[in-house]
């Protein structure tokens, strides 16, 4: 009788352990792991920024690093480089007391530096990982306006936030290298820009890597 009880207890314990993963659980789901991503992005100006540069910018890079906690959350850092440019036909601008007639080349360079928090809808070792993300922090902004070849402008570190949704696809479970797509709304506080805050939508695609 004692033998039967012991075998039954062992059986129940094994089944329970197997159901929560136990010793067979993926290391991605047992430890804090890391993920890095690099994306090429298209940037679409929104809001007041369209009055300054209204063209889609093809020169953007998104870089992300995340600490993936067991479960479905991650904390990380996001940076990259965004560049937009537009040439405006000759017109007369008022700069201080002066009237300046020039072909203006407007440039906007942004280097974000934001902390991220993400929620993934599937476990860390899954092949397909849709997620939502919120990022907040700042961005170094360089707003240079060339009048002909004469440069004028401002630069500085401004507050920024950027909610995003995305999808990581690794081909199969446990695999390290995969692809990623992301859509990110970004707003940067620019009080003296003349066009209000910088608002843009970044659609990006690139590579992602997860590991220990």
């Amino acid at each position: 009788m004692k033998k039967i009880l012991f075998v039954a207890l062992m059986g129940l314990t094994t089944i329970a352990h197997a159901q929560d993963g136990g010793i067979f659980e993926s290391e991605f789901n047992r430890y804090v792991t890391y993920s890095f991503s690099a994306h090429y992005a298209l940037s679409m100006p929104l809001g007041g920024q369209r009055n300054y540069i209204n063209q889609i910018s093809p020169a953007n890079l998104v870089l992300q690093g995340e600490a993936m906690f067991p479960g479905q959350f991650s904390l990380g850092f996001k940076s990259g480089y965004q560049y937009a440019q537009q040439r405006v036909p000759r017109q007369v601008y008022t700069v201080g007391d002066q009237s300046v007639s020039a072909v203006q080349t407007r440039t906007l360079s942004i280097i974000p530096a934001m902390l991220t928090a993400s929620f993934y809808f599937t476990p860390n070792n899954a092949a397909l990982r849709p997620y939502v993300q919120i990022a907040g922090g700042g961005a170094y902004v360089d707003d240079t306006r060339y009048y002909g070849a004469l440069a004028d402008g401002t630069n500085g570190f401004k507050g920024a936030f950027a909610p995003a949704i995305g999808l990581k696809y690794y081909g199969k479970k446990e695999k390290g290298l995969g692809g990623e797509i992301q859509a990110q709304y970004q707003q940067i506080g620019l009080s003296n820009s003349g066009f209000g805050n910088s608002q843009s939508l970044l659609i990006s695609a690139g590579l992602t890597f997860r590991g220990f």
Partner: protein
Amino acid sequence: MNNVMNSLTQTKRIRFGNMLALMLVAGTALTACKDNAINNLSPQDSQVFITNYDRTANFGQYRTFSLPDSVLVQANNQALTSATATEQQFLTSVANGLIGRGYTRVTGSQKPDLGVAVIRVNDTYTGVTSTPYSSYLSNSWYGGGYGYGSGYGGYSPYYPSYYSFYQVSDNYWNVQIVDLKNKPVGTTAAPADSTQLNVVYDAEIRGEGIFDANSADQTVNAIFSQSPYLKAIQ
């Protein structure tokens, strides 16, 4: 098993290394964008016309102006006069522009209301920049044994810095108009000749191709067309 794990880890490191290299290359390429922003400007699009004027001046009160037959060439702190064919063409364009606004050209002895100076600015600035060795690189070079605190009494080796020179040229036309009609009355303490005249109008023409003779009319017209207040009859 351990070999397989090591091999997998190595593969992951290589992949991550490749990604890092790719990111650095992409980042470097993108940050070069701003440097190239105005590389494809045509000479005409590079031209900039800057005008300013005295808001208290009533340009309708003036009827005549005088304009020398030569331009003033200003090179840093030196100034001399010059009258090449191109410069004379520029002077003619300025004179025609003012005549077109209703002013009459007179000689300096006929007590003009306005004095016009055409200045060709040829300033050149030379600077020096240096890129010293970093102490980190210096220590690495000699295995870190000859730097600070190495038993040589804090001896730090001297490495010559790399110096490079750069030169910036600033060449442009400057047109200034001074008020001679209301010039300050001289006193014994401050004779009229030593008193500064009031500049009522100032224009700069910058960019490529501005010193070509055939561009004189176009560039001078540009500064007058953005100065509608500059006319004898208001």
